[in-house]
C-alpha cells in the first residue's frame, strides 16, 4: 500500500489543482480523503473512478483483480464509443474466491494475464487493484512487472482500491498510472506542428466525433485523446504533442500538468459545450499551436471555420428558438457542466431558473454568476423533496440532470433530459448544441405529458395536490412560527465534510466578529475539508444583516 499512499500524496500536492492549492499545507496533506458519512453517502469509489478514466482506451484489456462485485456488477455500463477495437467493452475479472482470499490472489492474477494475452493478444493489459486483494496484500505491481517481462507486453498496474477515496481521486490515480507506465514509452511514426492532445474527454455517445471533423478540416491532428476512443499506442506516444486541451479539469489535471512539466506541452482548459465555448476552444488550440511553431495563417483558417460553423449552428437553432422562448429549465448537474451547459442553453433562448453547484469549484461558481447574474439560483445539494419543490416553485418546464435524479422529474410527471454520462445523445461542438436544443424541444412538445397528468376518473385528489398541500402547510407553519423558522435555518448543514451547521457558523461570526471565510474556517473548521462550501460561508457573511438577531429582515426572510 505504500506506493498507493505516496501516489495519493502526490496527487494532493498537485499544483495544477486549484482546490488543493487553496488549502494550507497541513490541510493539503489530508487531501481529499474526507471521511464519507456512513449511511449518508452516495457515489462511486476510487476503483470506479480509475476504471472510468482509462476504460475508453479501446484496444487494451482492462482486467479487474477482485471479487465478482467490482466487475460483475458494473461492466459494460458506459457509453463511450470506439472507432476500432471493442475489446474495452469485454469484462475481464479474476473473480477471486475464498481460497484466493486466504492464500493470496497473485497466482490467479498472473494466470489471468497470461490467458488474456494468449486469447485476445491486446497491445497491453491494464490491471485494476480493488479493496479485497489490497487488504490481503496482493502485490499487483510485482505481478504486472513479472508478467510484462515474461510475455513481452506492457502490463500496467492501476493502484486504486475503492476504499482509498472517492471516484474523483480514482480518476487522478488512473492518470498517475498512465503517466508512470504508458506515456512516453513509444514514439509516433511522424509528428507535425499541428499535433494536440485532448485530456479528460471520454467520447461518451461519440461526442469527440462531433468535434474531430472541425480539427480535421483545420489540419489539426489529435495525437491522442485521453482517454476517449484512444488506442494504447496513441497514449504511449502522446508526449510528442505540441499542445493540450484539458476538457474536464477535475478528473485529469495531473496528467495535463505533469506532461507540461516533463515534456513541455502547454495546456489550457476549455469546453466544447456551447457554441461560443466551442469557438473559444478552437481559437485557443490554434493560438497554442502557433506559439509552438505552427504557421500563423492557421488562425485565419480557424476564424473562417468558426464564422461558417457558428452561422450554421445558429441557423440550426433558429427554428426552435421561437418554440422554446420563455421555457424554463432547471439544471441539476455538477462541476464544469453547471456553467458550460448554462451558456449553451441561454444561447437557445431558454430561461434558467436554477442550476446546481454540487461538485463545482469557486471558479465554476464565478462563471455561473457571470452568466446568470449575481442572484443566480445556485443549489448546493438537494433532497428529492426539495428538488420537487424547486420544480414546482420555479415553475420549470423541464429538468436536465443525470440519471440518478431522473425519477424526481418523471414521477412528478415533468419532462426530463439526461445530460450526464449515461445519456444517449451527443451534445458537443456546434452540431451537439443543435442536437441538445432539438432534444429539449422534443421532450417539451411530447403530448404524453398532458395525458399522464390527467387524474383517473375515480381519484379524489392526485398525489401532486397532496404534496402541494403538505408543502404549503410546511411553509405556513414556518411563517407562523419565527422560532421554528430560525431553528430550521440554523440546522442546515453547511460543511458536510466537517459536519458544521449554519447555526454554529452564525454564532461564531457574531461572537467573534469574524469577517472573512478564512476566519470562519479557522474558528469552526467549516470549509477545511473539500472547500466546496466556502461560497456558502461567504454568502452567510454577506447576508449578516438578514439574520442578525433583531434584524428586521429576519422573519420576512424565513417566510420566503
Amino acid at each position, binding site marked *: 500500500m505504500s506506493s498507493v499512499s505516496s501516489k495519493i500524496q502526490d496527487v494532493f500536492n498537485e499544483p495544477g489543482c486549484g482546490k488543493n492549492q487553496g488549502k494550507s499545507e497541513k490541510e493539503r496533506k489530508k487531501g481529499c480523503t474526507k471521511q464519507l458519512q*456512513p449511511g449518508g453517502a452516495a*457515489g462511486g*469509489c476510487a476503483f470506479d473512478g480509475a476504471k472510468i478514466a482509462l476504460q475508453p482506451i479501446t484496444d487494451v484489456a482492462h482486467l479487474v483483480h477482485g*471479487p465478482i*462485485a467490482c466487475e460483475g*456488477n458494473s461492466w459494460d455500463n458506459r457509453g463511450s464509443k470506439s472507432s476500432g477495437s471493442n475489446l474495452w467493452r469485454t469484462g475481464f475479472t479474476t473473480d477471486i474466491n475464498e481460497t484466493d*482470499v486466504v492464500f493470496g490472489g497473485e497466482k490467479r492474477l498472473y494466470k489471468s494475464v497470461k490467458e488474456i494475452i494468449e486469447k485476445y493478444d491486446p497491445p497491453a493489459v491494464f490491471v485494476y487493484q480493488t*479493496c479485497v486483494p489490497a487488504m490481503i496484500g496482493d502485490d499487483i505491481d510485482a505481478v504486472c512487472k513479472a508478467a510484462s517481462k515474461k510475455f513481452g507486453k506492457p502490463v500496467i498496474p492501476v493502484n486504486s482500491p475503492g476504499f482509498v477515496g472517492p471516484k474523483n481521486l480514482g480518476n487522478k490515480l488512473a492518470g498517475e498510472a498512465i503517466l508512470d507506465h504508458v506515456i512516453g514509452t513509444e514514439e509516433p511514426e511522424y509528428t507535425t506542428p499541428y499535433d494536440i492532445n485532448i485530456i479528460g474527454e471520454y467520447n461518451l455517445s461519440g461526442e469527440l466525433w462531433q468535434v474531430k471533423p472541425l480539427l480535421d478540416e483545420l489540419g489539426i491532428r489529435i495525437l491522442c485523446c485521453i482517454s476517449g476512443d484512444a488506442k494504447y499506442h496513441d497514449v504511449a506516444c502522446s508526449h510528442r504533442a505540441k499542445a493540450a486541451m484539458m476538457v474536464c479539469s477535475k478528473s485529469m489535471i495531473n496528467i495535463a500538468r505533469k506532461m507540461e512539466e516533463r515534456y513541455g506541452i502547454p495546456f489550457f482548459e476549455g469546453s466544447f459545450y456551447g457554441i461560443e465555448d466551442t469557438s473559444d476552444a478552437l481559437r485557443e488550440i490554434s493560438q497554442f499551436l502557433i506559439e509552438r511553431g505552427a504557421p500563423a495563417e492557421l488562425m485565419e483558417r480557424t476564424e473562417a471555420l468558426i464564422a461558417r460553423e457558428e452561422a450554421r449552428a445558429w441557423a440550426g437553432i433558429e427554428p426552435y428558438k421561437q418554440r422554446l422562448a420563455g421555457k424554463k429549465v432547471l439544471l441539476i448537474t455538477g462541476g464544469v457542466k453547471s456553467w458550460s451547459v448554462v451558456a449553451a442553453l441561454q444561447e437557445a433562448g431558454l430561461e434558467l431558473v436554477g442550476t446546481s453547484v454540487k461538485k463545482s469549484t469557486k471558479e465554476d461558481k464565478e462563471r455561473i454568476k457571470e452568466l446568470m447574474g449575481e442572484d443566480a439560483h445556485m443549489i448546493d445539494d438537494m433532497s428529492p423533496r426539495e428538488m420537487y419543490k424547486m420544480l414546482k416553485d420555479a415553475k420549470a418546464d423541464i429538468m436536465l440532470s443525470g440519471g440518478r435524479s431522473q425519477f424526481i422529474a418523471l414521477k412528478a410527471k415533468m419532462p426530463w433530459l439526461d445530460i450526464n454520462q449515461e445519456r444517449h445523445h451527443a451534445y458537443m461542438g456546434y452540431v451537439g448544441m443543435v442536437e441538445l436544443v432539438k432534444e429539449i424541444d422534443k421532450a417539451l412538445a411530447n403530448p404524453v405529458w398532458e395525458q399522464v397528468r390527467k387524474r383517473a376518473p375515480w381519484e379524489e385528489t392526485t398525489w401532486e395536490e397532496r*404534496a402541494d398541500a403538505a408543502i404549503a402547510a410546511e411553509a405556513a407553519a414556518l411563517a407562523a412560527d419565527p422560532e421554528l423558522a430560525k431553528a430550521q435555518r440554523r440546522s442546515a448543514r453547511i460543511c458536510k465534510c466537517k459536519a458544521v451547521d449554519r447555526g454554529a457558523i452564525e454564532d461564531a461570526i457574531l461572537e467573534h466578529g469574524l469577517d472573512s471565510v478564512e476566519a470562519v474556517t479557522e474558528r469552526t473548521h467549516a470549509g477545511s475539508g473539500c472547500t466546496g462550501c466556502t461560497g456558502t460561508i461567504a454568502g452567510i457573511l454577506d447576508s449578516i444583516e438578514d439574520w442578525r438577531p433583531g434584524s428586521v429582515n429576519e422573519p420576512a426572510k424565513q417566510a420566503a
Partner: protein
Amino acid sequence: MAKVTHTQKACAVNPLKMSQPIGSALAFMGIKNCMPLFHGSQGCTSFGLVLFVRHFKEAIPLQTTAMSEVATVLGGLENVEQAIVTIANRQKPSIIGISSTGVTETKGDDVDGYLKLIREKHPELDHIALVYVSTPDFKDAFQDGWAKTVTRMIEQLVEPVPADAVRDPAKVNLLPGAHVTPGDLDELRDLIEAFGMEPVILPDLSGSLDGHVPDDFTPTTIGGIGLEEIAAMGLSRHTIAVGEQMRPAAEAMEKKTGVPYTLFDRLTGLEVNDEFITLLAGLSGRPVPNKIKRQRSQLVDAMLDGHFHFGGKRIAIGAEPDLLWTLSGWFRELGAEVAAAVTTTESPLLERIATAEVLIGDLEDLEKRAADCDLLVTHSHGRQAAERLAIPFYRIGIPMFDRLGAAHQTIVGYRGTRDLIFEIGNMFIASGHEPNPGTWSLPEETGHVGEKALAAH
C-alpha cells in the same frame, strides 16, 4: 443428466455472475419502509445501485457504511453504528437490512456483535428492525444472497406460533426466488386471489419495484411487505415457494411455525401450472375459475401453434440456476434442445438439466459453446456475444438495461407461458432467411444440369 463442470480459467471474461450482496439488497427492497445497507466501501453500493436503476428504471434505496481504508483495517463498528443512526434519523425506516461485502468479510467484521453493542447503546432505535446477512462477494452469487436474506428474515422476523394457534384459512405464504419478477408476482397474486385466498409475499417486489408512480416521495422502499405481515406469516395455512433456492427459507418457516410448504422448482410450462392450480383448488376448496380454464386452453393452443418454430432449435442459455432450470425445462417441452448451458453458482438442479454439460462459468464460455445455436438467452450483457454470433437474442434476468419493462416481463402461469411462446416464437420467425434465387445455387464447377443436357445434344 447433465455433467456439472467448473470453468478452469483463472480470468472470468464477460461475467454472467453478479455478487451476493446485491442479491441480498434486492430481497430487502421487497420489504416496506426498508433501507438496505451495505457494510463495505462506497463503490460496493454504487455499482449495485446503478445496476438496479438501469434494470428497474426506478429510484433505488441503498446505503453504505462508507468504509475508508483506515476504517477497513481497524474494523467497522463505528461506521455501522453511524450509518444506522444516520439512516434512522434521516429516512426513518422500519427496518434496516445490512449485508456484508468482500471488504468487511476479508477483515472479518463481527457485525452480529456490533449490532448487540449498538442495540445496548441506542435504545432509541428499538423500534427499528435490524437484519444482518453475511454475504461476502468472493463466495456464491446473486441468487444465494437473495435466498440467504429471505431465510434470515424468516428466522428473525416471523413470530413463532403456539401449538393451538388458529390459522387463517385464506392466507397463503408465497416465497419467490430472485428470478421471479414483479410481473410474475402480479400474475401469481391474481391466480391465488382467483381462488379467494390472500397471498402473503416475502419479499414482495411487486409492491416496490413494479414501476408505478408512487403516492409520495419516500427515501426508503415504496410498497413491499410490512413487518407486521411478516411477523404473522406463521398463521398462514400453507407456504408456496418458487425456485429451488427458496427451499431453506420454506423449511425455516415450517420449522419455526409448523406451516407446511410446497416447492415449485418452476412455474413456466403447462404441467407445472396444472399442479400449481390443483394445489390452489385443493387449499381453497373451490373449483377452478372459468378465467383460468380459458387461460389454460389458450396456452395449449399457443403450444400447438408454436411448436413448429421451436422443434429442433438449438438454444444457448446463460442464467442463474433457478432461471436456467425454468427455461431449459420449458424449451425442452416445446421440442427445442438446450445445446449450451452456463450458470453462476451451485444448485442441486444443475445435474438434472436435460443437456450434456452445465458449466459454472462466464459469457465467454457461453459464447464459445453457442457457435452453432439458433438463439442466445441471457441477461443484457449477452448482447455483444449475440452480435458477434449473429443469432437472435432473448433477454431475461437481471440486469436488463437496454430494454424497457424488465420488471414486467412475465413468464409464470398459463398466461405468462403463453406470452413467452409468442415472443420467442416470433423471434425465430423473424430471423428465418427468405430464400432468393441464389439460395440453392450449385457450386460453380458442377455447372447447371440444363447446360449439360444442352451440350449433350
